[in-house]
């Protein structure tokens, strides 16, 4: 049967269009229930004895949630307790329109077999399709459609009453009007809260209920704290007339009353708008897309130099804000300042953190402190506060009414005890959006079958380099060896140097599930004592790893180099190698230094080392920067995996030897793929930082030395020259600061950009080729190079610059997140390390000075922390803050230097 659906919509040009869609109704849509004998369905989803122990419904029943219940209570629906649910097509479509993330979660639940969620396409069912009536709003029509479907179900199931124990259908809705109408129609209907509270066997579900608007009214205090958000239509016209700006909200880590809104302009130019004060922040949460209105120029302020952490309810917010107002900034330091007038898109995700149990014993309302300092505290309601305190939990935000100081949320799940290693690791992986679930069966199905061996066909296509003396040099304990080297003297006196990289692209074929998973993960994440692989372990630690004395497939880059380290010839080939030794940096160093050893491997290493030194000198002459960041290694207890000792990473000559050749290979490959594919080569660039970035470095060094930042070369030279007698660490400190001035290096597609320069390495072109086991970018580069040398076939996505550009964005994001996760992991292990150590005295250095705190670095532990001048129990010393230097002077001479103290508050 054919019906047509008609609606009018506005076109982009402002016109009005009438759209007519044909809508077919069928009579072969089955109910999906086990008890039904009438429907000719092949398999059933809904069980005969649908048992959920509810005090309201003592009979077996199926649940039908309406759209709002799905949208707001998805956490409840995800719970394993809830099963045998009918999701109507009306609901599914509405959810899809309203919220993409919820829709995805709902789809996931539907696909889960054990949950027994059945989608009933009521809109196409002959008996349940309804047409909108005059005067009926779209929502009312959908509500009616839901009621009609529920009615149909209850009548449909009634016919089989004899062989069931009164199976019924229960509608869940939070809408009072809808509920009333459903009751009038004789349907079984409950509010979601009523129903969940009636589940006697599972009282903990109540905590996961999202606070609905009814409940929010209870918390209402008379005081309206925030200005109203503007409706979306007003925002859109405002943005069109450029009285508002649209941007991403980024809360400050150091100050909860301050944020910037990053407004993407046309092309490259983008501006940052500063937002200060609770009123102006107006309930925006980190990463939301917001509309801001600029304040008049006279009200512009400079970013404050106070470190403010939201201490909770007790503190009077007005005080803090007044303080903000008083900041009299130097004219030049003022930045465009604005206020948030509306939220365009919320970007809320479940947040990890800790519960602050309320002081009042009986209270069920508690504050939740997220692990990410940029997220405000969240008020949640729970009855299990005593069990949850001391645990890491996940909480989702439900809303932020304008009369509430904190957003309202609900408990999602517990991750485990705080301070436990597994829990904390889970937290930091979740917080940094690192995909860390086990590889799915679909992904694993694309792995080669074991036992695996190189086939004769492979050998035909590849160069046999097994006779060469190839060896690998890696950090100790490395199992994913992706590079190996060789060096030998040729008959004409020149040297042949080869870099052999694991041929991962041989195993990961474009477009399959394994490839997609790797592309999504983007990079392997190394945490302390744990590795989150990008590709399954069989590949990363076995088939692709260039272990010694086994035949492995490789992609080789072979140069002919003279003794002045000038490249005479470059050639790329797919090959088979057999590494003669897997060395650690220290072992390789020992071989080079040991004059008694004269075997092939050692000779090869010496040749490489000699060339590397020349290469490095050449590179530094060109203006490559040597920067420094503190990297700490932990010695782990082999049984408990707790850190037992820690040392900062030591650099040996051999580190730099391997690095030089990797750089060389990367540059050679970058040039080759760019020559071959000027539009779609995947390259890596490191833009020169804007001069203002160097301000902190110049200011910090001003009292001792002058730093030139005109070019990379000038910077490198003045960093080399910056030495202070009796203060050997000064140079390292400056290099650490210089590192922080730098821009992020990023992957990009050559067809989408014109600036290829790599600032840090002083190379006109660069890419990543040498670590395909742990970086997806390298796999793409491998594929491009293989096509370039005719060793492999191409595929459409590889040559599509827009697709590649999108891939680059993901890789850059994953890369950044993995670095943050790594840092967070180190920080956590540092804390674990100190847990048993008690108070230690160590030398520390002041990195930055704020108005009420200093940021201190302790090099020995690579630890950075904020030290406040005024703590809760101590009166703050009389401190004079000077914005210009910036510095703090303490008038009383006998005050102890605070830098000596360390406080672990991360």
């Amino acid at each position, binding site marked *: 049967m054919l019906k*047509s659906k*008609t*609606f*009018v*919509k*506005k076109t982009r040009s*402002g*016109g*009005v269009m*009438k*759209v*007519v869609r044909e809508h077919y109704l069928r009579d072969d849509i089955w109910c999906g229930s086990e008890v039904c004998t009438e429907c000719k369905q092949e398999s059933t989803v809904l069980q005969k004895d649908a048992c959920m122990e509810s005090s309201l419904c003592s009979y077996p029943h199926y649940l039908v949630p309406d759209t709002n219940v799905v949208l707001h209570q998805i956490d409840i629906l995800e719970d394993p307790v809830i099963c045998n649910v009918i999701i109507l097509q009306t609901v599914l479509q509405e959810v899809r329109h309203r919220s993409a993330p919820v829709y995805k979660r709902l789809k996931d639940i539907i696909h889960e077999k054990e949950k027994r969620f059945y989608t009933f396409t009521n809109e196409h069912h002959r008996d349940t399709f309804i*047409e*909108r*009536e*005059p*005067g*009926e*709003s*779209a929502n009312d029509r959908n509500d009616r459609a839901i009621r009609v479907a529920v009615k149909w179900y209850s009548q449909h199931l009634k016919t089989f009453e004899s062989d069931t124990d009164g199976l019924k259908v229960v509608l869940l809705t939070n809408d009072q009007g809808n509920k009333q109408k459903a009751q009038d129609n004789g349907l079984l209907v409950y509010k979601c809260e009523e129903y969940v509270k009636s589940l006697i066997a599972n009282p903990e579900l109540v905590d996961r209920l999202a606070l609905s608007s009814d409940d929010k009214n209870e918390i209402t205090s008379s005081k309206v704290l925030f200005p109203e958000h503007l409706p979306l*239509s*007003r925002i859109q*016209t*405002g943005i*069109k*007339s450029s*009285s508002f700006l649209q941007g991403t909200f980024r809360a400050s880590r150091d100050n909860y009353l301050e944020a910037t809104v990053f407004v993407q302009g046309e092309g490259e130019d983008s501006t940052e708008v500063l937002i200060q004060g609770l009123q102006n922040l107006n309930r925006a949460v980190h990463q939301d897309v917001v509309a801001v209105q600029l304040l008049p120029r006279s009200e512009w302020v400079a970013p404050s130099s106070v470190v403010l952490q939201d201490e909770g309810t007790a503190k009077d917010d007005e005080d803090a804000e007044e303080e903000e107002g008083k900041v009299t900034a130097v004219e030049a330091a003022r930045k465009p300042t604005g206020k948030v007038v509306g939220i365009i898109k919320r970007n809320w995700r479940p947040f990890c953190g800790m519960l602050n149990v309320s002081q009042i014993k009986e209270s069920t309302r508690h504050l939740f402190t997220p692990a990410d300092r940029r997220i405000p505290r969240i008020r949640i309601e729970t009855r299990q506060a005593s069990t949850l305190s001391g645990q890491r939990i996940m909480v989702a935000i439900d809303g932020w009414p304008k009369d509430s100081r904190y957003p309202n949320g609900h408990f999602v799940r517990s991750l485990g005890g705080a301070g436990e290693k597994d829990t904390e690791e889970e937290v930091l992986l979740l917080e940094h959006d690192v995909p860390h679930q086990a590889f799915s069966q679909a992904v694993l199905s694309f792995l080669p079958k074991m036992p695996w061996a190189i086939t004769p066909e492979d050998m035909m296509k590849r160069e046999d380099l097994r006779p060469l003396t190839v060896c690998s040099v890696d950090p100790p304990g490395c199992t994913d060896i992706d590079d190996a080297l060789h060096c030998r003297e040729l008959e004409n006196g020149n040297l042949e140097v080869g870099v052999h990289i694991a041929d991962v692209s041989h195993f990961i074929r474009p477009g399959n599930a394994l490839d997609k998973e790797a592309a999504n993960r983007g990079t392997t994440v190394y945490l302390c004592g744990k590795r989150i692989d990008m590709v399954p372990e069989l590949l990363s630690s076995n088939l692709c790893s260039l272990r010694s004395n086994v035949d492995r497939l490789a992609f080789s880059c072979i140069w002919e180099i003279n003794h002045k380290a000038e490249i005479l010839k470059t050639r790329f080939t797919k090959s088979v190698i057999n590494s003669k030794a897997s060395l650690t940096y220290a072992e390789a160093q020992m071989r080079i230094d040991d004059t008694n050893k004269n075997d092939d491997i050692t000779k090869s290493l010496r040749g490489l080392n000699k060339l590397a030194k020349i290469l490095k000198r050449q590179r530094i002459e060109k203006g490559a920067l040597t920067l420094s960041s503190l990297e700490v290694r932990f010695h782990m207890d082999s049984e408990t995996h707790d850190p037992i000792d820690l040392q900062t990473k030591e650099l040996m000559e051999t580190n730099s030897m391997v690095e030089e050749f990797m750089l060389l290979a990367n540059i050679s490959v970058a040039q080759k793929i760019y020559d071959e594919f000027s539009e779609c080569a995947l390259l890596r660039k490191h833009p020169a930082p804007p001069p203002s970035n160097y301000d902190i470095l110049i200011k910090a060094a001003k009292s001792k030395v002058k730093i030139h930042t005109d070019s990379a070369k000038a910077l490198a030279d003045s960093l080399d020259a910056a030495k202070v007698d009796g203060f050997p660490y000064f140079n390292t400190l400056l290099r650490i600061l210089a590192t922080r001035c730098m821009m992020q290096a990023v992957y990009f597609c050559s067809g989408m950009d014109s600036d290829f320069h790599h600032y840090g390495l002083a190379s006109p072109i660069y890419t990543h080729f040498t670590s395909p086991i742990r970086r997806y970018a390298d796999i793409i580069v491998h594929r491009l190079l293989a096509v370039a040398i005719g060793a492999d076939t191409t595929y459409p996505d590889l040559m599509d610059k827009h697709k590649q550009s999108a891939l680059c964005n993901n890789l850059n994001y994953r890369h950044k997140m993995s670095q943050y996760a790594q840092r967070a992991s180190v920080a956590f292990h540092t804390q674990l390390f100190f847990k048993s150590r008690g108070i230690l005295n160590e030398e520390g250095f002041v990195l930055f000075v704020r108005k009420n705190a200093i940021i201190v670095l302790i090099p020995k532990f690579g630890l950075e922390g904020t030290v406040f001048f005024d703590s809760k129990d101590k009166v703050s010393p009389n401190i004079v803050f000077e914005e210009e230097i910036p510095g703090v002077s303490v008038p009383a001479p006998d005050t102890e230097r605070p830098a000596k103290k360390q406080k672990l508050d991360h």
Partner: protein
Amino acid sequence: MATVQVSEAEKVYILHGIRDDLRVDGRGCEDYRHMEIETDVVSNTDGSAKVTLGHTAVLVGVKAEIGKPRPTVPAEGYLEFFVDCSANATPEFEGRGGEELGTKLSNTLYKVFNNKRSIDLKSLCICAGEHCWVLYVDVLLLQCDGNLYDAISVAIKAALFNTKIPKVHISSDEEGGKEIELSDDPYDCMRLNVENVPCIVTLCKVGHRHVVDATLQEKACSVASLIISVTHKGTITCMRKVGGGSLDPESIFEMTEAGKRVGKALHAPLMKLLEQEESLGKKRQKVGFLG
């Protein structure tokens, strides 16, 4: 225009019949052929109607779009006409054969219908000087069996009666920027008042008499005809003479009087029929094109 070849003997037969008020198909001189009307036949228009008159069949669709008002009349909307002479109607229209007739027809229709006495053009105004509704009236000739004007005019009136224009609201912000907002309810729409929309009556001078709704054969015997648009009150809004022959003033007077009479009599049953069809609403059995 579609023509048929008629022999001299046939002509004499037709002429004599008309002289005695008895036409070949048995009608009197002021009688129409059997007429069928169905509205809302094309779902993706805002209003449509299909009219068959004898074997003549026309389909009219009305599309409402937002446009800019004419500068001379900033507070009024307007109508646009287009007549498509499909080659289905007659093989003569094949290729560009129907173009000339189409233009001629649409020009006449424009004169007859696009004025504020026929339709309340002010009601089509959304925002004076900026936005107004433009009604695109598309006429499709499906089959030609004489008397196109009358059939088209009835179809246009029916289609305009059927037209539902979505309701819009103008919202303006403080900067004076205006935004057109559409009503969410598809049933919330504006109807046109078609009371004053005229119908066209074509009178063909055959011999010494004149006939209404001439068939192609009768047309072949006629030397000149008069096209008169008449409102429901019997007012003549437009008149045009077509054809090569001459008409003496006396017969013009006679013909206009007859046109008024016939036109007035045509409106009342037409409106009754349209309202009756409308009242059936969704229960109406649709006939469509295959019925």
